[in-house]
């Protein structure tokens, strides 16, 4: 059944309230099952042997001794993972990232894997695998990798300009207008270079799975993932299986932030299981997570912007270089696309460089690539404001994009929230609060596209009138609560009557991953329509039960009511009553819906931040933080605020301390939470939030995705705050105590 997705400004009874999340009790009592919390009879322990070099030729792998060790049931190398990718280079890259094929391309690259009866035996077996390496020159720095004579990482990658073998795998030039003319018009021009270091998503739960794959080519995978359907198709293609013969079940997820949209050890677990013909459980250690999964790009960005004395930004140019790890991606392209998206500027030219280095393959990280671009652009915007003596907030308001503005990445905006978030920021008490010595205030804006994509849901009504909603988008941030609210709202029943479950890949049609802030947006849209479809069935059953024509039945407050002549005295039938009669009126009552949820509304935020810097140690504390973001419509405001706060918290860590440190040999120096410093509770202030609701015209409730935008402004907001506190422009993220003290000494 077709449904109109247009915003209707419906009145709500439940949407917008804050009931407890259905998975809450499981999570606080420890009953919830995560990736590592399941076992199978006869299961083996799978472990991976990883490269100790940043770049090396693998001359020989001798697994004979490991195979002979008592208790070892399978040892695999690339020879056990034949290339089934049929010329699909992206897929081959995934395979090669999961297991090196002749070359180790980064510290931690998987080289072989074992499955044994226990952890101790598997560890011993790893030590018995003899790998002969021939070290190759390596490069880990994004700027070094672009220089002539840099070690070349992939021989199929050519510079699009020179057609010569290069580490530049993609060059993206965007924009409109004429920047030379724009700069000529400017009264002042600011040019500044920026750097940001590699960070990791830092999910607390490491990658973990339990795989079973039999000689009949049928298998099952229990796994912590943001996308069971994507994991199914990727694993099936890599291993040469029929998609429908692999059932993937997602566990509860202990954080993903984009890092669990990619496969890592899962294909290896399936290959080990196939070889051993036993279930294989694999749990990555924290060290492995840091060395071989994630991360996000390090960047080197040059910005040039011109402004008139009245505050009109006349031209904007940026060159954004993003490292991709050892395999080609499109992270620099995303940086270029998002760079100037908050502003309506006549002449712009963002250029994105995607660059290969000997580091792990870059993975999505919450609004991937946008935070670094925003750091560079929003810092420069503050510099422009200082130059012309205008308040940074006023300069932003003057140049903010609005409905009808042409976005820096091409399209023309519909109704958007950047202006309203800026107005709210200007009027926020935080903006006027007094600052003390060594304190500084900064602000910044952020943008994210949001994504819709393919989704389907099933809504099944039990004979007792309780409802099972089955969705295919993994719940990473409270979406089960939001979707239960939507189903209950549409059906006119209590929130508690609905139980939302995440379906496995054998019980639903394809669902895209929970990424692009699409979970509640797309599954919410499908849920609205599935509920409305179920209501049609309920009305048919009621019409039979009441012996009233279907046209005379309306659905009101969770009941079927007969209207019109001769029916007005009939008692309405409740959902519960109709459900109880279902076996006699036509069988189970359900509603289904498959959608491609187009036109996810773009999302904007403005953040304000106060910091205090110790000028003798360079230590920075964030003392106040405010997030103002457009949610379109907050279905469950608690979890919208949770997303706002979570993104800000991650951004604070990224801005101040998080950094993967590679030494001169290209070896990661801090693969653990001790020296990769995500913030602890005491590092963070209470993060204040303000939800704005500018409806997305393409969603019945007006919903926009809210999960990612909140991580976009923090690097820049904190960068501006620190720069204001110390009086020196900070241009290198993270602003660790060492960098701040050095900047003060150099100034």
């Amino acid at each position, binding site marked *: 059944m077709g449904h109109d997705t247009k915003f209707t400004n419906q009145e709500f009874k439940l949407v917008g309230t804050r009931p407890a999340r259905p998975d809450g009790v499981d999570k606080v009592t420890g009953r919830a099952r995560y990736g590592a919390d399941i076992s199978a009879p006869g299961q083996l322990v799978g472990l991976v042997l990883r490269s100790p070099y940043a770049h090396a030729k693998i001359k020989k792998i001798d697994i004979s001794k490991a195979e002979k060790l008592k208790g070892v049931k399978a040892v695999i190398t690339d020879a056990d993972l034949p290339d089934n990718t049929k010329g699909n280079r992206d897929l081959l890259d995934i395979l090669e990232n999961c297991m090196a094929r002749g070359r180790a391309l980064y510290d931690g690259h998987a080289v072989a894997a074992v499955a044994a009866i226990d952890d101790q035996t598997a560890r011993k077996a790893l030590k018995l695998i003899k790998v002969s390496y021939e070290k190759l020159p390596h490069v880990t720095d994004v700027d070094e990798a672009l220089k002539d004579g840099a070690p070349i990482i992939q021989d199929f990658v050519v510079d699009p300009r020179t057609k010569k073998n290069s580490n530049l795998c993609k060059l993206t030039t965007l924009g409109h207008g004429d920047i030379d003319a724009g700069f000529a018009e400017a009264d002042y021009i600011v040019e500044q270079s920026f750097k940001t270091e590699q960070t990791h998503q830092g999910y607390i739960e490491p990658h973990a799975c339990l795989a079973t794959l039999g000689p009949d080519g049928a298998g099952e995978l229990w796994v912590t993932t943001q996308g069971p359907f994507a994991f199914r198709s990727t694993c099936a293609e890599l291993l040469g299986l029929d998609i429908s013969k692999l059932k993937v079940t997602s566990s509860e997820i202990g954080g993903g932030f984009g890092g669990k949209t990619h496969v890592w050890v899962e294909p290896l677990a399936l290959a080990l299981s196939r070889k051993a013909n036993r279930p294989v459980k694999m749990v990555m250690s924290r060290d492995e997570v840091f060395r071989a999964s994630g991360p996000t790009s390090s960047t080197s960005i040059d910005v040039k912007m011109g402004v008139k004395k009245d505050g009109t930004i006349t031209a904007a140019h940026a060159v954004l270089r993003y490292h991709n790890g050892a395999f080609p991606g499109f992270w620099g392209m995303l940086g270029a696309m998002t760079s100037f998206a908050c502003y309506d500027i006549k002449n712009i030219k963002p250029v994105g460089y995607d660059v290969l280095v000997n580091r792990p393959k870059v993975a999505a990280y919450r609004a991937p690539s946008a935070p670094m671009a925003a750091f560079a652009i929003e810092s420069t915007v503050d510099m422009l404001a200082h130059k012309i003596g205008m308040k940074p907030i006023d300069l932003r308001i003057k140049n903010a994009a609005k409905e009808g503005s042409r976005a820096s990445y091409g399209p023309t905006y519909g109704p958007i929230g950047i202006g309203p978030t800026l107005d709210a920021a200007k009027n926020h008490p935080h903006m006027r609060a007094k600052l003390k010595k060594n304190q500084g205030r900064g602000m910044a804006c952020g943008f994210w596209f949001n994504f819709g994509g393919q989704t389907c849901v099933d809504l099944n009504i039990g004979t007792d009138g309780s409802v099972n909603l089955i969705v295919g988008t993994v719940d990473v941030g409270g979406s089960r609560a939001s979707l239960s609210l939507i189903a209950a709202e549409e059906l006119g029943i209590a929130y508690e009557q609905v139980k939302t479950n995440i379906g496995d890949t054998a019980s639903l049609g394809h669902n895209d991953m929970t990424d692009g802030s699409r979970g509640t947006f797309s599954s919410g849209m499908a849920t609205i329509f599935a509920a409305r479809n179920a209501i049609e069935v309920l009305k048919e059953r009621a019409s039979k039960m009441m012996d009233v024509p279907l046209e005379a039945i309306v659905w009101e407050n969770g009941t079927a009511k007969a209207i019109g002549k001769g029916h007005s005295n009939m008692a309405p039938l409740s959902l519960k009553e109709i459900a109880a009669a279902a076996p006699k009126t036509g069988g189970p009552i359900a509603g289904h819906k498959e959608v491609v949820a187009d036109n996810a509304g773009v999302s904007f935020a403005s953040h304000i931040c106060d910091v205090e810097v110790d000028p003798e140690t360079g230590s920075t*504390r964030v003392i106040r933080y405010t997030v103002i973001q457009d949610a379109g419509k907050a279905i469950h405001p608690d979890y919208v605020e949770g997303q706002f706060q979570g993104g800000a918290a991650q951004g604070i860590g990224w801005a101040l301390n998080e950094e993967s440190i590679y030494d001169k040999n290209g070896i990661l120096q801090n693969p653990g939470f001790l020296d990769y410093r995500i913030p602890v509770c005491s590092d963070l202030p209470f993060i204040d939030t303000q939800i704005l609701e500018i409806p997305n015209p393409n969603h019945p409730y007006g919903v926009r995705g809210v999960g990612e935008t909140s991580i976009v402004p923090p690097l820049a907001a904190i960068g501006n705050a620190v720069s204001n506190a110390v009086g020196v422009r900070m241009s290198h993220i993270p602003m660790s105590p060492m960098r701040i003290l050095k900047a003060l000494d150099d100034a």
Partner: protein
Amino acid sequence: MRYEAPNTTKEAAALLAKEKGQAFVLAGGTDLIVRMRLGMTEPDLVVDIKNIASMQGVTRTATGTRIGAATSGAVLGENKALIKAWPGVVEAVNLIGSDQIQSRCTMVGNLCNASPAADSVPAMIAAGAKAQIVSPKGRRTVAVEKIVTGPGQTSLKKGELIESITLPKPLPRSGDAYLRFIPRTEMDIAVVSAAVSLTLERGVVKKARVVLGAVAPTAVIVPAAAKAIIGTKLDDAALEKLAKACSDMCNPIDDKRGTIEYRTKVAGVLGKRAAKIAFQRAGGS
């Protein structure tokens, strides 16, 4: 791997002396078990000392305070008399790890782990703490600064283990303090640290000891820093001299936790700040 949990220090020493393979003492296990899990240490024998009565608890003696080797940081943190006598030592011990770690970790474990960044060590040295060492051959008492010889290295011989630490009775008008620099607010390892213990006479510093951590292979005593403040009321000039003496004494490494430049500079900053706190605690103004 064998696990033993003897009831006396003598038995423990005998077990350690007899073992032909790698033997380790287990108190809280907050370093040992982590290293075992990471595959960095594969002991043949682990001797758990928590059942040994003489290694548990805090006792007052005629000359000061005796702290059993298996006494946890949390127990020290609740001992009001000890906090009054040596606040700097207690605050240093209580900085190790988290609340959970505090209920397991010990000062002696922190000492014998021999990390240059150990929090309790500079404070113990500044306080003039001594270690009572037991072996099958007998006992000896040595100053804490003689225990650690380099990263992961101690002067303890095979069969020797520390039974307790003694802190002297503080002189009247004394104070001590410990500060460390970490990039976050907790759950971290010192990038630089400084401990100061001092005694006043008529408002002027009479005796002082300044010790730095994480700036050299072992904690270092900085006599020139002590000299810089002795005879002063901790005026700015004296503090600047102390800071310079601290920085001059630094011989740090450049690593993921800090550059040489940073550690050298901040050692002076922390030395000054710790001296001010110790001065105040001693009743100085």
